[in-house]
């Protein structure tokens, strides 16, 4: 172990205590390497996860679990560059990014 982040999983517990991700269309802003995305994406209908850092999105794509690949769309983008979707989102998640 070098540095472990939140092995107690308090963040995941808070996330699911505050929002119901089941069947939701989610926009995650500032997804980084997907650390938080993996913690809810299994319940969501679909996830658009954006971050301006190319290297972080590359890690997220590489590390995306096989069972989640069909529902997560990782994009290198800033919020202002995001096109308006044909169907709006149910839930927007600002993950340590505001």
């Amino acid at each position: 172990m070098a540095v472990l982040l939140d092995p107690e999983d308090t963040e995941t517990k808070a996330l699911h205590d505050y929002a119901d991700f089941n069947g939701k269309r989610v926009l995650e802003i500032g997804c980084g390497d997907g650390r938080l995305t993996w913690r809810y994406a299994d319940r969501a209908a679909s996830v658009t996860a954006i971050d301006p850092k190319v290297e972080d999105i590359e890690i997220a794509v590489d590390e995306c679990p096989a069972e989640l690949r069909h529902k997560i769309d990782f994009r290198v983008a800033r919020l202002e560059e995001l096109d308006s979707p044909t169907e709006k989102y149910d839930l927007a998640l600002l993950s340590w990014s505001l």
Partner: protein
Amino acid sequence: MVHALERICDLLKSDGILLDIHPTNEMAAMAVRLQEQIIPAGWLNESDDYVEYEWADEALQHVVSSGQFALERVGTFEFVWHADSMSDLCAYLAEEWKDAIIDDMTAGRIEELLKLPVYDKEILVSEAIRIARYRRA
């Protein structure tokens, strides 16, 4: 930040939810765990004194005041990092939190505690994180 929140409002359905997670502007507490005992060692500060988190709070307050979002629930939780050594922690901070500052007194105290002849020990960094749920109004 306000522009970002206004853009999010546009992207959400009429009853959509905004969930915001960000650290508070409190300094992160540093401690050393020696087996079951947790010994406070000092604080981890930022070169800009966490000012961006105050700006985030102000931006969120603005979009609530302007009627774009309604605050439904807010709270805090503790997010803890565990590190084996100061060198591990400093390497991580250099990569992920470049404006973090550990003062010499805190660093020295941690090094002294880690030298104690205890088998099971680690550094703990505890951040207070704000989580809030808003509904598009």
